[in-house]
């Protein structure tokens, strides 16, 4: 059992240091000078400190107020009070055979900031009064959370790679640095990641990286479809579908490829063999794949948003957006909600289990051109025909956090894993950077800019590589964007270097862990809440069935007093007293509520009633 070291109990190693000798008894009112604590041992330094060691240590674990680790942040006081019943014993300085002691006894301290990141229990919420039995359960839950977060924080150590950005010399604007400069500066392996595919023949290209970031698929407007391992530049397949290609997307693995063609949606394997032609999805304009739900979301010209479960081949839901042609779509990686942009300046959020949009946001005066959602699901970037680029907060308020007018509207937007925002405007790609992970990029100075051979038709950051793939009318460009991607990958989840066997293994596991489509909702954490409405309903039904409320408060029944004072009259009097008190409380509460309501009502009324209203006829 280990927890984040809290100021309450830290390892007491200072004991053994020579300067820790006490000259004077420490009083409780004095500031503790050294973490030696234990105010009960005054007097000159003793020789036989070792004898006392064990006893003091025990005492210290309760009384010492400071730990020598991180002093700046503390866990909530509440958690400090509850102690492990199992009697967590700090492993004191272990004696080795040689007699020397470990200068850093016990487990290494856990960085609290990191540990807090993994804490999920919202302690700010007030809980109603709980019985001791319940309280013990709550305490157990909190303790477990603490332990687990400590463990997770410890395992952060394993994330060896650290992200970094391009930094200009003093005064230098990083946007002036060209791709050629970057390529020249970086090592050969990284330089190889920058390349241009000159494909002028088959028109503007859409591209898509696989989830591991290893494979790249692209489809040209004039029917050219290809997939390749872009790191080694090994071509997997190349075909011409002899039909307009609207969009292209990898399914859960690189072995399957969905292509939105002029008429139907077709699925190919990595050899270029057509596996399926899905006629239920026709005239598809945009594709999105929800990897944890195995859903392929398609937006069509006819205005339908269709969810296709690729694991069983069934259409889960076909939703009519009632907003004309759909050609702007993005998925929220946090909650798998699909964002659709419409020509009336709104963005609507969809889940397959609800027929209407979950949320509709009015974003622009003109029609939407592009939508992108960042990996944490916090921000949504939109660009409209009014040449504005806006970033919205998706955490409940849906308010624009920042907005910029661009010289030309951004036709395509993309967020990287670490929150960089790329916008394709005409033949130029601009990239903005926020400070730190998942922070909002301030849309002032672009971090990088790049001019392409033709107008941008598709943008995507490559996962786990500092690369931005741009599909344009002149082919494909792979740009180097330092600091774009997450440097550490989860080898069990999406491993760029996985073998075929590993992929197969992962596929089975992923299918077993498939999330049902109906769980998609705006706030996924709401699933961990109790369904209050049906809870109440059940309670009501039960009381109806029983004829009384078993959980209701029993009406006060006074106990008869002894020694002749328990007359019926006095009993009744006492009973009435309590009842009256309760009644009074109730009335008082309702009065207060009424007053509040009146105040609330009075305010808006005051707004509407102006002195000038008398002139309005």
């Amino acid at each position: 059992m280990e927890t984040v070291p809290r100021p309450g109990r830290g390892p007491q190693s200072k004991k053994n240091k020579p300067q820790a000798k006490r000259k004077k008894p420490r009083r409780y009112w004095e500031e503790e000078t050294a973490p030696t604590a234990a105010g009960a041992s005054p007097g000159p330094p003793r020789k036989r400190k070792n004898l006392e060691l064990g006893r003091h240590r025990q005492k210290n674990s309760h009384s010492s107020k400071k730990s020598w680790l991180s002093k700046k942040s503390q866990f909530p006081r509440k958690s400090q009070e509850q102690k492990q019943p199992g009697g967590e014993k700090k492993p004191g300085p272990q004696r080795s055979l040689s007699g020397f002691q470990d200068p850093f006894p016990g487990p290494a301290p856990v960085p609290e900031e990191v540990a807090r990141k993994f804490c999920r229990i919202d302690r700010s919420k007030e809980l109603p009064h709980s019985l001791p039995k319940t309280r013990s359960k709550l305490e157990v839950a909190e303790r477990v959370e603490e332990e687990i977060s400590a463990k997770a924080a410890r395992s952060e150590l394993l994330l060896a790679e650290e992200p970094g950005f391009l930094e200009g010399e003093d005064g230098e604007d990083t946007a002036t640095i060209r791709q050629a400069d970057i390529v020249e500066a970086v090592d050969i392996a990284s330089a190889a990641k920058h390349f241009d595919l000159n494909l002028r023949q088959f028109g503007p290209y859409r591209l898509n990286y696989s989830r591991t970031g290893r494979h790249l698929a692209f489809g040209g407007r004039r029917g050219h479809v290809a997939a390749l391992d872009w790191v080694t530049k090994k071509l997997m397949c190349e075909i011409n579908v002899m039909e307009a290609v609207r969009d292209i997307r990898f399914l859960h693995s690189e072995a399957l490829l969905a292509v939105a063609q002029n008429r139907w949606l077709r699925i190919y394997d990595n050899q270029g063999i057509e596996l399926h032609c899905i006629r239920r999805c026709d005239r598809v304009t945009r594709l999105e794949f929800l990897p944890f739900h195995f859903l392929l979301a398609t937006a069509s010209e006819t205005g339908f948003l269709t969810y296709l479960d690729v694991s069983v081949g069934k259409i889960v839901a076909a939703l009519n957006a009632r907003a004309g042609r759909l050609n702007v779509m993005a998925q929220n990686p946090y909650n798998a909600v699909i964002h659709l942009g419409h020509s009336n300046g709104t963005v609507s959020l969809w889940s397959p289990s609800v027929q209407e949009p979950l949320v509709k946001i009015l974003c622009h005066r003109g029609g939407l051109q592009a939508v992108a959602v960042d990996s944490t699901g916090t921000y949504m970037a939109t660009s409209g025909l009014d040449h504005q680029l806006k970033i919205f907060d998706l955490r409940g308020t849906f308010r624009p956090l920042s907005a910029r007018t661009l010289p030309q509207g951004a036709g395509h937007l993309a967020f990287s894993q670490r929150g960089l925002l790329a916008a394709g405007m005409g033949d130029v790609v601009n990239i903005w950077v926020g400070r730190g992970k998942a922070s909002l990029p301030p849309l002032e100075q672009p971090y990088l800019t790049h001019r392409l051979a033709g107008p941008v038709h598709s943008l995507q950051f490559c996962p786990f590589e500092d690369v931005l793939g741009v599909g344009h009318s002149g082919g494909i460009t792979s740009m180097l964007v330092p600091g774009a991607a997450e440097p550490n990958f989860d080898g069990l989840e999406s491993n760029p270097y996985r073998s075929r066997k590993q992929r197969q293994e992962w596929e089975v596991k992923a299918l077993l862990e498939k999330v049902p489509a109906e769980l998609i909702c705006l706030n996924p954490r709401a699933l961990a809440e109790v369904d209050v409405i049906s809870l109440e309903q059940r309670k009501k039904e039960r009381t109806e069935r029983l004829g009384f409320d078993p959980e209701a408060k029993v009406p006060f029944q006074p106990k008869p007093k002894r020694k002749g004072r328990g007359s019926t009259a006095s009993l009744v009097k006492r009973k009435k007293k309590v009842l009256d008190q309760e009644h009074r409380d109730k009335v008082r509460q309702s009065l207060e509520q009424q007053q509040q309501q009146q105040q609330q009502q009075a305010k808006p009324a005051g707004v509407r009633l102006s002195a000038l209203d008398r002139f309005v006829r």
Partner: protein
Amino acid sequence: MQAAEMNAIRAAEGLLALSQQEELVDLPNCPLSASEDEGDSDGERKHQKLLESIGSLNGKNRWKLAERSEASLKVSEFNVSSEGSGEKLVLSDLLEPVKSSSSLAAVKKQLSRVKSKKAVELPLNKEEVERIHREIAFNKTSQTLSKWDPIVLKNRQAEQLVFPLEKKQSDFVPIEHVFSSWKPRTPLEQEVFNLLHKNKQPVTDPLLTPMEKASLKAMSLEEAKMRRAELQRARALQSYYEARARREKKIKSKKYHKIVKKGKAKKALKEFEQLRKVNPIAAMEELEKIEKARMMERMSLKHQNSGKWAKSKAIMAKYDLEARQAMQEQLAKNKELTQKLQVVSENEEDKGAEEEELLVPDVVNEVQMCADGPNPWMLRNCNSDAKGEIQEEPEQPPKPMVQEFSESEDDERTGTEEEILLQEFEERRSLRKRSELNQDAEPVGSQETKDSSSQEVLTELKALTQKLNKKKHQSRKQKMSSAGTVLQIQREECAPEEEEPLLLQRPERAQTLEDLEDLGHEEFSQNKEFPRPVLKGEQTERNPNNQIDAPKGKKKEEMIDLQNLLTTKSPSVKSLAIPTAIEELEDEEEKHQKQIIKEAFAGDDVIKDFLKEKKEAVEASKPKDVDLTLPGWGEWGGIGLKPSAKKRRRFLIKAPKGPPRKDKNLPNVIINEKRNIHAAAHQVRVLPYPFTHHKQFERTIQIPIGSTWNTQRAFQKLTTPRVVTKPGHIIKPIKAEDVGYSSSSKLDLSVTQSNPKRPTGHRKKQLKKNTVD
């Protein structure tokens, strides 16, 4: 004991009952015998009886005993009657023979012995006995069972139980024993062993070296005594100090506390000065603390003369010198507390104070920014504030504030302290008054500005507003002049000047697109909603404008809000590479293009459509009333006749108001309020046992269990089964020995038997003792 008492009481009661019976038996006898004796004198007796009954009618002696009027010497063989003789018959009388004989002495003795003995108590009846038995049995069993309570509780709370339960191996084998059997075998081991021996390192007893052992032995009795004495002394000192502290805490004198506080403050300051010389880093920390205190002071209204006491004093201040002084003191204190502590090295101190004041707040702000970190609101705020203002209107710094600031600074320099305080006080008062005035005038102004949704109305209103504004200014000025000092008037003048554009700007704004363009800059800076209101910084208290702004911001209307959202002119991006299509465009053309865009979108009224849609959604989501009116029931019916309003009102069941919509305050959003049934099917519907409120239960299921979110260890820990059984093993019931109890419950039993009514608390304690033993 009680039982015995009860028995005694019972016996006494029995006797009483018996005697009463006897009397009852006696009563009817008497008249009977009398009637037999004197049958002839019947009429007389009847008369007598009648008289008696009449006499008893008054209720006093209704149950008068019938008494015999004449002595009866006749002794019945069935009845021992003492009546008539007037003295009781005593047992000894019977025993005493006519003449005394010695042969009866033995019998007499025996009898006396019998007499001295109490009567044997009646045995309790069967039910009583059984009840007592039951009680004792219950106590006994409950005691023996309650011994298991802690174990049961422990097992219930245990994270994991492994069956069959095994005894814990409490005693570890000391490491010496382990080592004793170990012998070095390989040459390397031997070599190491030799080395250790050479250095007198402990081999068999790894805990203590010989040196340590020696030192252990070295502690003499004297030393120990001394040590003990020291400890005692320390403890005593501590208790003295505590007592003193407690005593001092109880002192209620305000003056005393004031003096103590002052002393402390002085001391702290002195210490700080010293610290600054000795340890500048620590001093900086100390300084931060002071700074924090200052911030707190500035945030609070503690010494701002805004409390109840201060207000009462303010009334008195005109006449009472002391009250005035008290107020001044308060203000001085505030000033003192809010004054910045200047810690600059001597050479730097020469520089202007202004510079410092400019510098420090910036630093503070930056720190706050950093601390806020990823909070996008704060970030946004900073950006918009800093950059927006600087970029957009560098030529228009907030002039009035600066003026004020400089004024106040001048004041500070010129005037003596008291004067300043007086002035400030005056200012505050005037401010308060003015704010009241403003509030009077405020709603009118703000509503004018906010009503801009309908443009036609606005044009009509425009003239009116101007008139009103003028009037307002005039009236206000008049009032002010009556109130005030020169300074006030100065301030007053600058305030309305500022107000005017604010008030007039709104109605004009939305009229044409050109206007909108022109106003673009100002709008951006003064927007209420987005970007967020510009923080006025430290002058909030002093700036009169602020009081006007605040209520306006609160009362916002949707339409304006939405307009703002979409029409705010966002700063344009300057990027190095401009798309080729636009590159050749010059600035003017660019502007022209923007104009075109705006005009193009002016036609399709996106906002209006959206608002309409939202309204419909809101209407649809409202719970509907149920109308149960039956037309023609109880009144005339037919074509063209409607049920009366009264009736309709009577039979209309109003639907309860639902909770407020989530998008109530979000003008640009429609949030679907419908419940997602499919997702709800996966939610928990029944609260498990110990939880009484859903929030409690929710807290326990917040932690994800899967291995995706946890480390392997944590995952294993989270998914350990609660009960583990070993296959093929018999799970025996738990025994006392397993848990560490000795099976000696006899002692407990005897205790309970001796006094079964012992309170339960005692028993529990005893139990605990037993378990500990």
